Structure formats: C-alpha cells, structure tokens
C-alpha cells in the first residue's frame, strides 16, 4: 500500500485516476481504517485529503454553508451558525459513533461509505445538500441523493473525490430534523431513520417540504410524495397520515438481526412523523 498526502485537489485526483488496483480516499478514516484492519479491502493507494486547502473549513456562502470534505462531526457541532441554520443535519452527523469517532468522521465520508443506514445522509437529502465533485475531467455538482449507488457503492468515477458539501440558504421560517431508531441509546446503527426539512409561510402553512428515509432500502431515499403530502397544511393529522403512508410505500428494506422488513417499514413511518413534528416546531409552526 502506498500512502500519499497531496497538497492540491489536482494532485489528489491525478494520483487516484492514474493508480492501478484499489484506491481509497482518506478523510476522517473512521470507515477506511476499519476496512483496512479487518482486511475487507487491501488498497494499493490511500490518498489523505486533509492537507488540501479548504478541506477542513466551514465557509459561509450565499446564505448557506460549504463544508469541506474533511470537516469532522465535532467541528460541525461547534459551529454556531451551521447549528442554527441546519440543526437536523448537525444532529444527524453527531449520531455517528462515539466522541472519538466524532473527532474524525466526516459528512462526505459518511456519504461515500454508502451505507444504507448512514445517519447524515437522509438529513442531507432532506436539506437539499449538493456535493461538489472534482475529478480528472473537472468539477461537477450532484445532489447528495445521487451519490450512493447501493451498499458500499457510489456513482463517483475513477479519480473523482467529493471536495465539499453545500448546505443551502433557507427561508426564515424553516426547520429540519433527523431521527433514527436503534435498540440502545448510543453508538448503534440505524434500524430505520428519517430526515425532514420544511418551510412555512407567514400563516404557518407548510410551503415546501422534503422527506428522506434511511436503512429501509439499498440507499437512503428521497420520498417526494411524502414531502408533497405535507405542503399546504399546518401539519394536520390527515397530511401526516398521507406522508407516513408515502414513506411506508417507498420502503424496500431487508430483514436482518436488527429488524424485520415489516418492523423497519412501520418504524420509518413513525420516525418521519416525529421528525416532521420537530422540524415543524423548529420552523415556528404551531398546531
């Protein structure tokens, strides 16, 4: 295995694009190092991106925030502006692992590890987050929901890396939230999860809403019908019931030791309902 720690994105993508065999991008390393130690992957090249300028910073941009690919969960949680604008995304990221893992784990890494149960991903999808991808052919922008292709697989091509995640500006009366079900209280993998982001008009009616679910399909899913179901009402029971039905209809989970497909489907609806209630309250809505 070769270890490289380039100073520029160009150098990093060049190294990855021209490498033979298996490559891994190293940001926080909380997944990559586990894969190495367990022998799940034997990379020929590991490229550490943390010494590239911008990778470790959170920058205000157009009313939103650009989060470098190597920014840790702990750093996100300490950023007051980011916590105020996108509390659901930050709390989702903070659910990943222990304090020690939070010191290193990143949003971009959670996305690229492509676990169906990745906590930050439904929250980012609900938030309309955009990944900036740089590669040998230049730069492209991709909605985060289009990055995972299946368990452990992404749509990135050889030599491409995510350099940042952009969380956009949002209207004043907005809120987001993420919830997951786990059988213990800390440090576990989601059995079913949901992220909700919504905005209200001046009367407290939901104007826009996005609902995303995790751990109930090969990738986290944006459930457009679920978001649509919430629009035009003030989170009344009928709208919520339609939203929950849309979430459950979108579920396509496996059964395993963490939960049966039936349990996951039911729970995803419950998580979406509760996350919607928190997001609605954060937006200043009253029922």
């Amino acid at each position: 295995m070769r270890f490289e720690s380039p100073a520029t994105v160009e150098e990093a993508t060049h190294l990855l694009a021209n490498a033979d065999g298996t490559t891994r991008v190293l940001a926080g390393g909380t997944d990559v190092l586990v894969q190495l130690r367990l022998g799940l992957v034997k990379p020929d090249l590991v490229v550490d991106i943390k010494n590239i300028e911008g990778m470790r910073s959170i920058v205000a941009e157009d009313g939103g925030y650009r989060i470098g690919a190597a920014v840790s969960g702990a750093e996100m949680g300490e950023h007051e502006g980011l916590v105020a604008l996108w509390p659901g995304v930050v709390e989702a990221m903070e659910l990943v692992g222990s304090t020690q893992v939070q010191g290193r784990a990143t949003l971009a890494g959670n996305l690229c590890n492509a676990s169906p149960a990745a906590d930050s991903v439904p929250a980012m999808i609900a938030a309309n987050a955009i990944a900036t991808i740089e590669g040998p052919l230049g730069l492209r922008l991709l909605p985060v929901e289009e990055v995972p292709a299946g368990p452990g697989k992404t749509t990135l091509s050889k030599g491409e890396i995510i350099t940042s995640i952009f969380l956009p500006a949002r209207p004043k009366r907005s809120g987001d939230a993420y919830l997951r079900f786990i059988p213990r209280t800390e440090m576990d993998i989601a059995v079913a999860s949901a992220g909700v982001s919504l905005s209200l008009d001046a009367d407290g009616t939901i104007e826009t809403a996005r609902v995303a679910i995790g751990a109930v399909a090969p990738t986290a899913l944006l459930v457009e019908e679920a978001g649509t179901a919430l629009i035009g009402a003030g989170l009344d029971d009928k709208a919520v019931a339609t939203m929950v039905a849309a979430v459950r209809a979108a579920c396509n989970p496996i059964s395993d030791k963490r939960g049966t497909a039936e349990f996951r489907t039911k729970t995803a609806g419950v998580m979406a309902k509760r996350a919607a209630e928190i997001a609605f309250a954060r937006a200043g809505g009253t029922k």
Partner: protein
Amino acid sequence: MSKIHVTTTINGDTVEYLCSPTETLLDVLRDRLDLTGAKEGCSTGDCGACSVTLDGRLVSSCLVLAAEAEGHEIATIEGMAEGENLHILQTKILEHAALQCGVCTPGILVAAKALLEKNPDPSEEEVRFWLAGNLCRCTGYDKIIRAVLDAAAEMRGA
C-alpha cells in the same frame, strides 16, 4: 515496502519515527515508541481503549494512520501526570476505586480530560454521553462517572 518518515509532537516532545503505510498511530505508539498506555481493545474504533488527542481533539488512535501524524500534536496518557504527581482525574479514579482490570482506564482518563477541557462543569448525563465510546467490562461505569464528576468539581475549586 518503503517506510514513511514522520515528525510529530507527542506529549510536548518532538518525535521522529519510521512507519509502514498500513501502521496505525496505535501500532507506532505501542510497538515503536514504547508508549503502551493506549491499549488495543477492538482495533475498530468501538471501545475507546486507544484514546489519544490529536491537535487537542479526542480520537481513537487505532483509526489514525501513523503517517497522518506528520506535523500534528498528539497527547497520550503518558503525558497526563507530571512526574510523580498524578492528575486530579487519576487521583479520583483511584479514590473512587473506578477501575478493576485497568485496560480501559488510560482511554477513560484521556477522554475525561478532553471533556473537562471543553466543559469544566458537565452534568452526569453529559459525562455519560461523552464516555459512551469508552467501554469498561468491570466497573459498571458508575464509579467512573462519580470519579469524573468529583474531579471536575475539584478542578473548578468547588
């Protein structure tokens, strides 16, 4: 396999070592630098026994490649006491009998110190959440939590 030359700071001292690309910081601390306070429990970032700080940030040294330490500052349990004088946290762990086999103890101490530097007055719940990634199979945790809260109070001068 060619070795990587790394210059880093450990407990305030400049340290140089040669490592292979696949070695973790924990491997180098224990096997090359003879700093065996950090323990290898799970080697997958779940148990916290290998906790160190990297630029002041609590991390699992089993999840850091040794080559990544270049130019950074690492603090380990070996840097916690000043000579024969134990840190208050260490004293309190002893006073409260908050250890049995001791394998988790260095990690608990490093993690607790990082917590109290960030938050000198944590609630019991905050201590329990912060230390959730430090597994102990002996104590049942309660004595550890009491020791950390007691140390925090003493460090605040309460």
